[in-house]
C-alpha cells in the first residue's frame, strides 16, 4: 500500500509529509533545549558570583 505525499508535494499544503514531520520534530527540540537553556539561565543567575543587575555601573 502506498502512503500518498511521502515523496511528492501535496498541492494545497505545499510540502511533503517528511518535510512537515521534520519541522515538527525541530519544534519539539526547540522546546527541549529552550527548557534546558532557561534552566541554565535561572541557575546561573541565582548562583553566588553571578553578575548583579547593576554590576556594569559599579566599576
Amino acid at each position, binding site marked *: 500500500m502506498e*502512503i500518498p505525499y511521502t515523496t511528492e508535494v501535496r498541492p494545497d499544503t505545499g510540502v511533503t509529509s517528511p518535510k512537515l514531520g521534520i519541522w*515538527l520534530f525541530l519544534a519539539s527540540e526547540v*522546546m527541549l533545549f529552550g527548557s534546558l537553556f532557561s534552566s541554565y539561565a535561572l541557575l546561573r543567575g541565582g548562583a553566588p558570583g553571578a553578575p548583579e543587575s547593576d554590576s556594569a555601573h559599579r566599576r
Partner: protein
Amino acid sequence: MLRKYFFSTDHKVIGLQYGLTSLFFLLVGFSLVVLIRWQLAYPGQPVPLIGGLLGEENAPGGILSAEFYNQLGAMHGTIMVFLGVVPLAVGAFGNYIVPLQIGAPDMSFPRLNLASYWFYAAGGLVMLASFLVPGGAANNGWTSYAPLSDLAPGHGQTMWLVGMLLLIFSSLLGAMNFITTIVQLRAPGLTWFRLPFFVWSQLVTSFLLLLAFPALQAAAILQGMDRVAGTSFFLPSGLVVSGQPLDVAGDGNALLWQHLFWFLGHPEVYVLVLPAMGIVAEILTTNTRKPLWGYRLMVYSVFVLGFLSFTVWAHHMFLTGMGTTISAFFQATTMIISIPSVIILSSLILSLYGGSIRFNTPMLFALAFLPMFGLGGLTGLPLGLAATDIPLHDTNYVVGHFHYLVAPGTIFALFAGIYHWFPKATGRMMNETLGRIHFVGSLVAMNIIFFPMLMQGLAGVNRRLWDGGAIYTHAQPVLFLNIPMSYAAFALAFVQIFFIVNLAISVRSRRMAADNPWEATTLEWATPTPPLAHGNFAQPPRAFRGPYEYSVPDAAADFIPQHVGEERARA
C-alpha cells in the same frame, strides 16, 4: 503472525494494541487505589484476602507500610495519567479513528507509529518493574517534587525517570505523526471545516504533546543527573536531612522542577480532556440526529484552549511563595482559560436541544460526561484563585476536583468511545444490558467516591495521608465518610467486571454489526466493517459535505454521510 499482530505497521492494529495495553494499565492503576482505599477506611488493619501477597517489606502482617502507601499513591497517578488515559485517548482512539475519519489509507509514517507503541510498552514495563527493585517503586507523588525525589533512596525514582523518558519519546513520535497525517492525508474534498470535531481535538492535543512534553524531558534528564551523577540542579544549599547537613554542591533551585513539571503538567490536563470532548461531540451528534451546535465556535475555542493551556501552569504553585505578581498573572490566565472550556461544554449541551435522543450505552456515558465534567470544572475555579487556593491546596478537595474531571469526565468519554466504535473495529455489537449495568454502577459509585472528597477537603483534610487524617482533630467530623467512599470504590471495581465480560463475549457475539450501525455521517463509517487491513477503504473516499448533516430537510434519510454526493442524497 508476529508481523500481523505485534509488529504490524497498520494503524488499526497499533490502535488496538494501544487500546488493550492502556485498558490493562487502567486496571493496574485502579487496583493500586483499591488498596489505598482499604487503608483509608481502615487505617492500620491488615488488607483482607491479598494482604499476605504484598510482601513482608511492603505490608508487614498484611498492613500497608507508610512507604508502600506512598508508592501506591505515586504510581496510581503516574499509571493512570501517563500509561492509562493518555494512551487510550490519543494512542488508541487517535490511531484507530483519525485516519478513518479523514479518509486516509494509514498514518503518514506507519513505522514511526509502530516505534511509538513499543516505546510506550517499554516505558510501561519499566514502571511496573520498578515495584520489584529493592526499596520499591517511586514514592514521591506523581509530581515527583524536588528535593524529596532527588534524595529518595533506592532505584524506584530513577526507574520512574527512565520510564517517563520512554513515554515522552513515544508521545513525541505519535504527536508528529498525528499532525502530519491530519495536514497531509485528508481525503479529496475534506477541507479544514469539513473535519469532524474529534479530528480537531486530536490535532490540538498533538500540538500540546509535541510542545509541552519536552519540558518534562529536560526536567527528567536534570533530575536523573542529580540522582545518578551527583549534580544539584534541584538541590539548594544548606539542606538538612534527618538532622545532618546534606553533602551536596548545592545552589540548585527546587522550584525549577515545579516550573518544568507543570509546564508539561498543565497542558497534559488538556491532553486528557480534549480527546474526551471530541469523542463526546461525535456521539452526541450521532445520537441526537442533529448537527453539532456551534461547530466553528467549538473549533476556534479548542485552539484558544490549546494556546492558553501553555500560560496557566503556575496556578499549581500559588503556595510556593513565588510572589504575588506572578500569582496575579497566573490567576488571570486561569480565569480566561475557563471561557473556551465553558463555550465547548455549553455548545455540547445546546446540541441536545430539540434532538430526538437515542439512549444507547455510548450516549448514556456521553450524557453523563456533561454534568460530571461541569462539576469538575466548577470545583476548579476556587483552586485557580490564589486567595481560595491557599487553604484548599493539597487537600482532598483538589483530589476530588481533578478526579471529577478525569474519572466520570474523561474516562466516561473513553468508555462511550469504546461502546461507540467497537462495532467498527470488530464487526460486532456490544451487549446493551451489560453496558447499562456498567454505566449506572460506575456513575453512582464514582459520585459516592469523589463527592465526599470535596467535603473532606473543605474541612481541611490533607491528601496523601497514610491514616486518612485520623490523627488530626479537625478531620474527625468528616472521617466517617472514608468508609462509604471505600465501599463505593470496591463496588466500582466490581462493576468493571461487567465491562470486561462485555468486551470478552461481544468479540465472539453473533450480533454482527452493519457497516454503519449508528447511521452516522463521518467517513469512518464509509469503510467496510472491519476496515480493510491495508488502505481501510474499498475505493479512495471523497468528501462532499460537512461532518454533521443530520435531519437535513428534503433529504432521503435523516442523515447524509460525508462521502455521499448531491444526487444520491436527495434521491
